[in-house]
């Protein structure tokens, strides 16, 4: 048992750093399949990152030290947040009562500094992206917390490891409607936090329509590499919340558990790819409506539990 914990604690950081680019590759591949193309190789994101990290640097005259602090602090915050999440349904390397609040606020810290780095360039396009990112977060955050509240009400826990731990399976049978609503809500949060369609199109070619991509227009070379890797880690971390919900089975054997986790995470990536292939990007004005919808979903999920006896 003890060695199991040790294995978990060793595997999680490794997976946290190495797996994320693969998710990007899977999403791209899925989209290519839908479009009838062969698409880039699955491992292309690793090559891209490696290339970026070795490149030289170009900096704008306008920028200050905030410009490089942005990606660096964001990356650290996201990775630290990743250590709080029970990736494979076990226990996270770091767990304590209230870690879910730290989790959400670490992601917010990353967002804060990414947006500041964008404003540091003085470009109105990047300002636009920063404004949109911060605005969307204002509606995504309550949705996330309502979802976590609902899970806490069913499991009676105060840390992410409790919420996504053993009682998930019991919750699915005792509070099915809530779990479905929370799942939908969290998936929407996953999409908006990672700037995916329908909130933002990572492949758009027009600066005016981007959100996350436009914030990092001026970052190049190693800084862009850090940004991309950080974003991919965030995708993995939030996917793991969804995985924690949809895979209610808790396997004891560590290798099997991690294999199951990787498979499920890649499945979430495929789901993101499917959404991206079958949906259009929403008009900017309708994005807040969808986010309020997510709040309502998770909110209803929580309210359904208020009357019941957990």
């Amino acid at each position, binding site marked *: 048992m003890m060695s199991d914990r040790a294995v978990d604690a060793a595997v999680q950081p490794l997976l946290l750093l190495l797996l994320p680019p693969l998710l990007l590759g899977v999403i791209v591949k899925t989209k290519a399949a839908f479009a009838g193309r062969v698409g880039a190789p699955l491992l292309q994101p690793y090559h891209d990152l490696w290339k970026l990290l070795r490149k030289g640097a170009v*900096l704008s005259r306008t*920028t200050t030290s905030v410009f490089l602090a942005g990606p660096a602090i964001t990356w650290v915050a996201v990775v630290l947040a990743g250590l709080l999440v029970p990736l494979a349904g076990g226990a996270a390397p770091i767990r304590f009562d209230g870690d879910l609040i730290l989790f959400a606020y670490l992601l917010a810290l990353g967002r804060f500094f990414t947006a*500041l780095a964008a404003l540091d360039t*003085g470009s109105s396009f990047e300002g636009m992206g920063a404004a949109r990112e911060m605005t969307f977060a204002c*509606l995504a955050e309550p949705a996330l917390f309502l979802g976590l509240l609902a899970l806490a009400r069913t499991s009676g826990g*105060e840390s992410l490891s409790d919420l996504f731990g053993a009682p998930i399976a019991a919750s699915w049978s005792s509070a099915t409607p809530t779990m479905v609503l929370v799942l939908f809500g969290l998936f929407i949060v996953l999409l908006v936090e990672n700037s995916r369609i329908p909130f933002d199109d990572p492949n758009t070619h027009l600066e005016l329509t981007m959100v996350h991509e436009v914030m990092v227009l001026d970052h190049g070379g190693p800084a862009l590499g850090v940004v991309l890797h950080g974003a991919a880690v965030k995708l993995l971390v939030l996917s793991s919340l969804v995985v924690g919900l949809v895979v209610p089975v808790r396997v004891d054997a560590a290798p099997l558990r991690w294999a199951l986790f990787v498979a499920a995470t890649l499945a979430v990536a495929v789901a993101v790819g499917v959404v991206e292939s079958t949906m259009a990007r929403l008009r900017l004005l309708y994005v807040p409506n969808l986010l309020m919808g997510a709040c309502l979903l998770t909110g209803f999920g929580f309210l359904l539990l208020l009357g019941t006896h957990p």
Partner: protein
Amino acid sequence: MAASDTAASLFALLPVWLPLLGALLIGASGLPGVFLSSRSRAGERLAVVLHGVGALAVLVGAVASLFVASSPRFELAWSLPFGSFRIEVDGLSAAFLVPLVVVPALGAVYGLRYWSQREHPETGRKLRAFYGVLAASLVLLTIARDGVLFLFAWEGMALSAFFLITTDHDDPEARAAGRVYFIATHVGTLALFALLSIVFAQTGSFGLDALPEASASAGACAAIFALGLLGFGLKAGLMPLHVWLPGAHAVAPSHVSAVLSAVVLKTGVYGLARLTCMLPHPPLYWGGLVLALGAISGVAGVVFAIAQHDLKRLLAYHSIENVGIIVMGLGLALLGRSQGRADWIALGLGGAILHVWNHSFFKALLFLSAGSVIHRVHTREIDRMGGLARSMPVTAALFLCGAVAICGLPPLNGFVSELLIYLGLWKTLAPADGSPVAAAALAVPALAMIGALAAACFVKAFGAVFLGVARRPHEREPVEAPRTMLVPMAALALLCAAIGLLPALAVPFLDRAAATWSAAATAGGGAPVPLRTLAPVGPLGWITVLSAALWVGAAAAVLLLRRRMRVEDDQRVPTWDCGYAAPTARMQYSSSSFAEMLVAIFRWALRPREHAPRLRELFPKSAHHRSHVDDVVLDRWFLPVLRWIARKLLWLRFLQPGRIQLYILYVLIAVLALALSTVPVGELLKGLVPR
């Protein structure tokens, strides 16, 4: 033996003597300057020294009070009319005293350069005199344990704050803001008069002690509670009683704004905390009401902040938001008392008081650094600034520190107190009996939304003020603030970082305060919160570890990336302009554009006003577009009603000819009438009429 006994008792009374002595020193700090020449610099220096020594004395007293078993109390053999001079430093007082003296003292140092006697010979002496009185009244009202003494200190604070807000009395904006403040604060005082009268009617004394259960009827308690919410809520700036706050904070000198926002608002919170610990058995709805009011204040405050164009008004609305968060903690503690849950009390009240500390430190930091900026660029309009991080790097870094803290982001202090309140709210989920208390957990998403909105607002503020390039040429190229102003700011930033890193340092104060609060309240029965309930709260240790990890990790990552991306200054290029060849500084995203989407989402509450020209001709002349968000509560609700009342009462104007002698006569007549009203007329008549 006797001598050592006296010494021991003197020592035991130290925690109450020192604050009193300190208050006297602080209160007198500005007075010597009044008698010196308006050009003399000796007065302002002496004021800072006296203030500093006094503040240190109060601080030592507050810390010492933690080490004595029972809270030290002291009664001066001098009776005020109606009341007595009774003071005591209990856990609640000690916890509030810390920020209440630290911030004004640092503000006084800052004021040396910000409002120096040399630059402001006419107003400098007045400012310093009232600044001292304000800071001293703050201390006195926190340690006063008699209602009348409390009211004296309260009025001392209210009046000196008025003179500080109107320091620049030639400015019509300052006079208008001062007037609104004056009316608001006196409406509050009136409510407190009524409150104390009810307390007197119930207990026969003006003491601020727990009401004995036997003598307090439920109706009287409800009335006291409602009046307290009005009186203290007005001071704390709870929505919708915040109307005086944005204007006053905007026009006052920046270190006064810092004190107003960081400290004076907190006396309202202190009042609420003191009042609720006087009242036995709070019903469930009190906690719910306070929690809901806090959540409304929090969300509405930050939403209004986002829409502001004036840097100091923006910060002022954030004070409303933060008072909302504090009051949420207080509401949770009240719920805990009505439900008999010690952990809710400890986390709610502990979180509230820690947030009082934290908000004092980071908000003062923000106001002071905003003041440094305004001192250099001579405008409060955010959209006229830009690119100041280049010319004022230290100020920028300090403002950024305050911004991260106020958004409640780790690793700074704002996160710790919000975490305690979050944890407390989380615990309300636990009752499995389907009781409505679990609905209190709905404050969690409100708190989450407040955090996200605050982050958006401070990205906007920091970005528009310090990043990018200057939106319009400055008359004089701004330079870094002088050291006298930077040092107090840096001290506040260090405090923010220290509490974020080692929250356990504040825990003794919080534990003691929570124990005092619940012990006084449950004097009649029920289990008080034992001391040291917060200390073992698991996260605090983890916070230290993770904050340290975050600091180290972030520093290492930033250094690595900077080394990897070193570019010589002459090899830098323009920002990518998306193909447009001639960008100008005015084409940057402005703070209003940044806030536009959020303002649109909350349009129903903010009611922004736009003045857009209508273009009729084919070749229109140059035109202007202007949009602003007024204070909806003041400008749409209160002022129209008050104006209507004023119109209806015009016929009473003859009473107000503007001669002060006449007004004194009115006071005399009122006092006489009051005195006569005590004469037992019926008895007299009975005596006169022969049987």
